């Protein structure tokens, strides 16, 4: 489990540091998978245990990390979708899929003026 997280994180960081938005978005997705796995195992790995407490059971899985992972998945899913749409818009509008576009053109861009 630990090595799975490590591989995902390493790949994610490598991709996230690339210059093009598509690779960066993929990298962010990998990192978020790694984070989700990490959160999940933060409640310790247990097998065949119910997550709900009852009087007849003495051993049960920790339900909280599962809830946390669920929340984290939903949030990162939304974020990833947003990042994809945003980078697509940015590509269509600026004609460049580099994360840092042309510095000089940006600074003198009159688009920054509110109309």
């Amino acid at each position, binding site marked *: 489990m630990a090595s799975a997280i490590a591989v995902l994180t390493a790949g994610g960081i490598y991709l*996230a540091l690339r210059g093009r*938005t598509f690779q*960066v978005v993929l990298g*962010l997705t990998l*990192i*978020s998978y790694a*984070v989700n796995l*990490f*959160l999940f195992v*933060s*409640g*310790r790995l247990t097998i065949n245990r119910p997550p709900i407490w009852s009087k007849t059971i003495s051993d049960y899985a920790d339900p*909280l*990390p599962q809830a*946390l992972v669920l*929340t*984290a998945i939903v*949030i*990162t899913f*939304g*974020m*990833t979708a*947003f*990042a994809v749409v*945003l*980078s697509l*818009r*940015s590509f269509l*509008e*600026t004609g460049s899929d580099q*994360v*840092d*576009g042309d510095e000089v053109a*940006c*600074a003198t*861009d*009159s*688009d*920054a*003026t*509110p*109309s």
Partner: protein
Amino acid sequence: MSLSDQLIIAPVVIPALAAPLALLVMRRRRWLGVGISLMSCLGLLVTALLLLNRAGDGAIRSYAVGGWPAPFGIVLVLDRLSAMMLVLAAVLGMIALVHAVLTRADRAGWHFHPLFQFQLMGLNGAFLTGDLFNLFVFFEVLLIASYGLMLHGQGRARLKAGVQYVIVNIVGSSLFLVALGLLYALTGTLNMADMGLRVAALGPDDQGLLRIAALLLVSVFALKAALVPLHLWLPRTYAVTTPAVAALFAVMTKVGVYAMIRVVPQIFGDGAGAAAWVPAPWLLPAAMATAVMGFAGVFTARNLSEQAAFAVIGSTGTLMIAVAGWQVESLAAALYYLVHSTLTGMALFLVADIVARRRAGQADQASPGPAFAQRAGIGLLFLLAAIAATGLPPLSGFLGKLLVLQSVAGTPGWQWAWAVILGTTLFGVIGFARSGSAVFWKTSPAVDNAVPPPSRTDDMVGAIAALLLLAALFLCAGPMTAFTRAAAEQLLDPAATAAAVLGGR
């Protein structure tokens, strides 16, 4: 639980209701949507003032969401600091919204008002929550809304800066989750007060992990607060976004600072073993670097909104120099300076907007242009905002800096802190004087395509309101410093918070 106790959750509920309502009615009746948005802001302001009044007695109130008792359910905690931040966010929201409506900046896209309300909801939630994971969720709420607001009006520059802003924040959120996972694995709780107690009871084997978790968490907050070296996302983002939105964003960096001064004494305070005050040695150098970078940016900025963005960074640096002391005096000074610097950042962005709206070709570039309408009046506003930002009398920046200087005197490395604060003040004065004289004093011959100046002058209302508040902050410095002092004492007494939140446990 009586009705008045339910007031604590109102700052989250009001915008949460207003946002979808505004979204629904915006399509058919624009003015109704705007009205809902304004009413919600007004409601927030009233609620925040009521809560401030209530928190003034020094008791710490907790509100168990859904009636679940403290360590198991999510709690909202109201103490002096969170009440103060609520009022600040409500005031800022009100002024930014009025400015956006008056300048019609809210008409540049469809969903300005719903996003604005969600942003306020995220801010208020982050200020109130007593649960670490809940803090993450509210951070995400305010971030998602801020992505939308930041891109409001679109345009190339905004999209380009927006991609970077979103990516940086997604990485930050991932790190936040890693820190949360570590802390949960170590302590088995997410409630801040409960975690503070359990961290103290950890065995020696876990101290290394605890240190890692603490530093990760603090670096995420530093990213939000735009501390050097994690500040690179801020100047471009704030400079290109709609100025009314940038004015509201002035409080967003302060959320990072708030989270730090909330979490560190509560969880990583004196009892935390190896992790006790673990960010302290890093914070002071980072804060000083931030102040220097920020005011150097003020010196070199090419236009007024970029200058305002760098002034926000610089003031965060000055603020963190005070926070890094972790003493009652320095925290009290920091809280006073926090209120001041947020309002100042807002005033600077609004003045930059006023200038940009009157100079067609050049917008708010710090270069001479043709004379424009109401130049003397706007020049005066800029002068006052610059005075506030650099910390000269007679506005509250002077007192704020004085308090900060006084409180750090005698702490280790205070000579450096003094040198940095005073030196950056000089830099700031020169930078603002330079851009101000270029914009307001020099004139270049009129160009052919000069547009007629706007006939309305009501876009100055927001900036004037912010400056009046700064003056009020200066005049009410006595009660205000007493309040921030009490808030700082409350912050540095985690045991009392734990007792109030967890009941008799």
